[in-house]
């Protein structure tokens, strides 16, 4: 065992840190609209030009093909620089792109992959529906083959950045006769197609990143099917993860900084009885506990990355990190509310949208989005522990 990085890795880290310090956007990221789109694409473009785009993409698709340790270092530095980890280029780079690499035809790859990397296009995801949340395979948006087109009708929900996107990875039901996992087709949907209506959803932290998408006789060319008609579930499940255990690294680094900020915030605050918060044994224990837990979250990531570096293919254990991270984030947010007291009630638009109270509200999503904690526990129980279903 060893927690030191090699000289080569240290040099890589220095290079990343320097480059990010010199090239990361200096202006605050806009909260939405075309300004956000332009901002995110410009930043992706900058990374691409400098050879940092697709740090985890294989070289054959134009990515950097970094080793898993380089990825870890990149994401650590990315988080340390305070850059957003789930910007509007995220779906293209981390989900749609990898799926296309795994399952698409050569012409589809050639057409779609380079613009994702270059920062020319934004992708969004059309998976969830109002009636199909945890039970994704029960989706019911209809796709009917009509000549060379598939005609799509229905509604998707929780589509991040649908209003900014050029393309969508879209799951539709093309066959109702068999089991629910059969009869699903994976489509590339042009978001400018006639018949698409997009309605942003306001979330409790004041964000509007999520959208509902309505499809009214939207015609998608059959040539945009990835894989085969009715075989889309397999395509969706085959999505390669190139993160190899590093997916939450940048978020963890940010969480660690948030904890340090909270510790600092106790230094000059007093409670309602006029006593310094820094002398409050109860708060001290809660702060120490989350500081230790954030450290162990990093250790857990390092352990998974170490396994990846030895060639292990990360499996459902990734859910352990997701579960732990999301509940820890909520715990930290709650602790901050208690430390800030009456000040926590102000919804101030500084740093994070809505200030600390906005962050607090935002963290309610972390145990829901990307699979609820209940579903994560099922996955770990069934697939890691092998418990009976």
């Amino acid at each position, binding site marked *: 065992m060893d927690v030191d990085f090699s000289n080569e890795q240290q040099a890589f880290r220095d290079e990343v840190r320097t480059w990010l310090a010199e090239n990361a956007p200096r202006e605050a990221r806009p909260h939405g609209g075309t300004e956000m789109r332009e901002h995110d694409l410009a930043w992706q473009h900058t990374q691409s030009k400098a050879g940092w785009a697709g740090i985890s993409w294989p070289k054959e698709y134009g990515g950097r093909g970094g080793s898993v340790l380089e990825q870890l270092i990149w994401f650590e530095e990315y988080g340390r620089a305070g850059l957003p980890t789930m910007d509007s280029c995220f779906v293209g780079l981390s989900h749609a792109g990898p799926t296309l690499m795994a399952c698409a035809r050569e012409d589809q790859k050639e057409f779609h992959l380079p613009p994702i990397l270059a920062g020319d296009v934004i992708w969004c995801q059309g998976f969830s529906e109002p009636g199909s949340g945890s039970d994704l395979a029960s989706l019911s948006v209809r796709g009917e083959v009509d000549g060379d087109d598939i005609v799509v009708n229905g509604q998707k929900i929780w589509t991040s950045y649908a209003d900014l996107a050029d393309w969508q990875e879209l799951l539709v039901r093309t066959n109702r006769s068999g089991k629910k996992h059969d009869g699903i087709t994976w489509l590339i949907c042009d978001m400018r197609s006639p018949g698409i209506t997009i309605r942003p959803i306001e979330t409790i932290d004041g964000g509007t990143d999520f959208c509902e998408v309505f499809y009214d006789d939207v015609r998608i060319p059959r040539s945009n099917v990835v894989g085969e008609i009715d075989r889309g579930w397999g395509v969706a499940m085959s999505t390669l993860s190139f993160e190899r255990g590093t997916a939450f690294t940048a978020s963890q680094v940010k969480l660690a900084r948030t904890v340090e900020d909270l510790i600092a915030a106790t230094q000059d605050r007093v409670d309602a*009885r006029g006593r310094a918060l820094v002398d409050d044994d109860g708060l001290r224990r809660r702060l120490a506990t989350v500081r230790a837990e954030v450290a162990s979250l990093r250790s857990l990531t390092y352990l998974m990355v170490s396994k990846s570096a030895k060639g292990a293919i990360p499996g459902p254990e990734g859910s352990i990190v997701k579960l732990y991270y999301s509940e820890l984030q909520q715990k930290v947010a709650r602790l901050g509310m208690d430390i800030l007291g009456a000040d926590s009630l102000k919804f101030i638009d500084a740093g994070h949208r809505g200030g600390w109270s906005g962050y607090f509200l935002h963290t309610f999503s972390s145990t829901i989005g990307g699979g609820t904690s209940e579903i994560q526990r099922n996955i770990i129980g069934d697939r890691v522990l092998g418990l009976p279903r």
Partner: protein
Amino acid sequence: MDLVPSDDQLSIAEAAAELLSAVAPTASLARRRDDSVAISDSAWGSIAEAGLLGIGLPDRVGGADAGMQEETMLFREVGRQLAPGPLLSTVLAAHIALDSGDEALAAEFAAGSLRAGTARSLQHTDHDAAAVLNGELMLWDSTGSTWLVVVTADGAGLVQTDQLLPLRPERSIDPGTRLGSAFANDVPLSHWTPGDTTCIRALVLVAAQLVGIAEACRDAAVTHAKTREQFGRPIGVNQAIKHACVDMTVAAEQARAQLFFAAASCDGDLPDARFQAHAARVIAANAARDNAAKNIQIHGGMGFTMEFEGHLHVVRTETLGQQFGTNEASLEAVLTTGAPQ
């Protein structure tokens, strides 16, 4: 000994719930989000006209002559319905005016012709200096309110809002509660009454609102667990959901029981009424906080949207939790007021 509300008390609750949901429905909070006052004049007028503000006040100032229990039944519905604006602070203002002998002012608050918001000093105040306001203040619903109540464990009093210039509005986490900042430099409080009578009333009525919130969240979660289907069955069949609903029930029931116990102890002037009130506030705050979070989680993605009212329970629990003394202060009081009898 009888902790079951009487039929009269249940009628108060029913009437209050009906009126509040009619004149200030939850959906109105979002609509008025950018208005300077959280509650509309017409809603305020209807509530006052129905006599809700005077339930616990004597007949001679226009009240209904009932006790803390009846106010408890009212404010439990205020919490459940997420009713906006300075209802509780105005009721407390009326009591403060009455206790200090200003029956005319009490009558104005009871009639709703004057409103009172809340001011809380963010700096520690000496016991001796309690009747004077100093330093940074946080204000609740000062907009539209001529007066502000100041409630501490040492005493309670009033101050006129315009004595606290400059007032700065703060964007509030809760669309049903307006917040503001102000600064005071040796501003004396009027209608000062030493002692913690008003503080205890505030604790019980805050607890009542929090119990209403905890119950509303439990009800919403249980309904959703019965109706929302995934994997071909209602999600409530899953123990992860079912047991969460049960934990919400245990929390709400214990909080309700302790609330009733505290209200009856106060009305009966029992020696440990102070302890029971602080305990009620602590238990209710934990129940509201836990249940509000669980309700969102059980609603999944929908729970995270502005459209769904779940977040309003969260933010009301937070704003209420800071308004009249903190949960921390009540915890400390639970330990220092002596064992329950």
